């Protein structure tokens, strides 16, 4: 091969390698960033600055993608798909390869979701849903409340005035029978709860009802009957048809020792609170 022939191969190399090098650099920077973000020096200056510098406003979008991927892991690898207009051979094959069934991870396998929540929250620390889902995965399913508490503490460091995180902290403390910390967290949640919520904000209304309900349990179990009664009265002003709250308030007014009953009610409340978002999705096929 002569010299000109040898130099003739350069264009192919120059076309392939810069692209590969750019991709390599970006991926390496991303992986390195995931690791170095744990460094105290970066933590002390606020983690947002680093990711904003690296990815700009795209970090939130990427964080949402990773959060969605965590949800896929929560459902055992099954993605949430929409209903197709027709079924063809290729789709039948695709359904055999990736069946559209509805199941949840249980036990320690739920921890497999946590790396994706970790990345999602690193990219977007204001993604409160990701902090909450990670906490739920670690505590309610994984039965590791100490890790859940650590996740929540980190989430609160980034979102110090978010009532949902305090509500979850209170819920977590109630599950661990830590009544005082639970009452404190739920009181803080009430204090930081935004006052000017629109009337049609169903989620906020539901959260406020939970705050008042759980707060009343915590104070009732601690023997702080006046505070428990105050929360129940506020709860009944928002939901007058809540028969359980009405009964409990009447019992408190009578002066009876209601702590055992409160514990039983609380147990029922905590076991029936979580509902999978996909279960309310009409377009999602549910195979047993």
């Amino acid at each position: 091969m002569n010299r000109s022939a040898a130099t003739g191969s350069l264009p192919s190399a120059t076309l392939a390698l810069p692209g590969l090098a750019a991709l390599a650099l970006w991926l390496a920077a991303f992986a390195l960033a995931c690791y170095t973000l744990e460094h105290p020096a970066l933590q002390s200056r606020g983690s947002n600055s680093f990711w904003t510098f690296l990815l700009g406003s795209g970090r939130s979008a990427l964080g949402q993608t990773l959060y969605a991927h965590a949800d896929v892991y929560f459902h055992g690898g099954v993605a949430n798909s929409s209903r197709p207009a027709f079924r063809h051979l290729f789709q039948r094959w695709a359904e055999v390869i990736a069946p559209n069934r509805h199941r949840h991870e249980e036990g320690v396998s739920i921890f497999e979701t946590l790396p994706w929540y970790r990345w999602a929250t690193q990219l977007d620390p204001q993604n409160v849903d990701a902090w909450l889902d990670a906490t739920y995965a670690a505590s309610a399913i994984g039965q590791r409340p100490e890790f859940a508490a650590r996740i929540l503490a980190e989430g609160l460091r980034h979102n110090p005035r978010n009532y949902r995180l305090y509500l979850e902290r209170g819920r977590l403390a109630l599950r661990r029978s830590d009544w005082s910390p639970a009452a404190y967290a739920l009181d803080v949640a009430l204090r930081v709860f935004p006052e000017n919520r629109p009337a049609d904000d169903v989620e906020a209304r539901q959260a406020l009802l939970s705050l008042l309900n759980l707060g009343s349990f915590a104070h009732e179990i601690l023997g702080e009957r006046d505070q428990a009664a105050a929360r129940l009265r506020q709860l009944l002003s928002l939901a007058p048809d809540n028969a359980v709250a009405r009964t409990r308030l009447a019992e408190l007014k009578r002066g009876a020792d209601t702590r055992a009953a409160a514990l039983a009610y609380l147990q029922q409340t905590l076991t029936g609170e979580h509902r999978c978002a996909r279960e309310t999705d009409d377009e999602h096929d549910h195979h047993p």
Partner: protein
Amino acid sequence: MNRCLVIARMVWLDLLRRKDLYVLLILLGGLLLALLSLNVFGLGGMVRYVKDAGLLLAWLFSWILAISVASRQLPQEETRRTIYSLLAKPLTRGELLFGKWLGAWSVVCAATSLFYLLIMLVVAARGGRFEPLTLAQTGLLHALGLGVLTALALALSTRATQSAAAALAYVGALASYLIVPQVPVFLAAETGLRANGLLILYYALPHLELFDLRQRAVHDWGPVPGALVAGLVLYSLVWIALLLLLGWLGFRRKRFARGAAR
């Protein structure tokens, strides 16, 4: 057939002389090690995300390698002017094309096997493992998908420059993998001309997503039925044959002007 094997061997030697494969291997190893060092809220023992990200990187790198290797074969021979000496030998253009495809496909498959091996080692170091039969099926279907991709890039390079062929192959591959599987969902909201256009895309492009068994390997769903694998082998062979035929039709009467650099 022997002449095809000689051509394929030349493709292997060419890739081994270049740095692409080594760069990708080092990069994959580095990224997998970075994945292992992730601090997941102080909790250890998770391995599925390493499998997932590892296999994703293996797919990404094997596609990059397949398109870059296949799309440069014929334009490179032309630029180097070695095409004249090749065609002067007792070798038909069809044999040259098939030999180039065989070499590109086999060398990319070999590189992909190395990627898989590296991932298996890292996963094992983390205390995890793949289900062997599922992983074998994942690798087999991945290799078949790469066969279609190399045939596509090679066919495009018979009538386009290397960069144009590579760009078109990337666009075609990404459309096949990302958009085509969503067409039945898009069609639920489309009518008329747009719906017909989507249907044409759905049937005219290869369904590369069918060769992706990564989720089964990552989430331990177990192997797919043998009949499905057989169907996919047949499907990929049809696509490879069709694309190589199109490539041959574009290449068989192509005139090479001496002195014209591409």
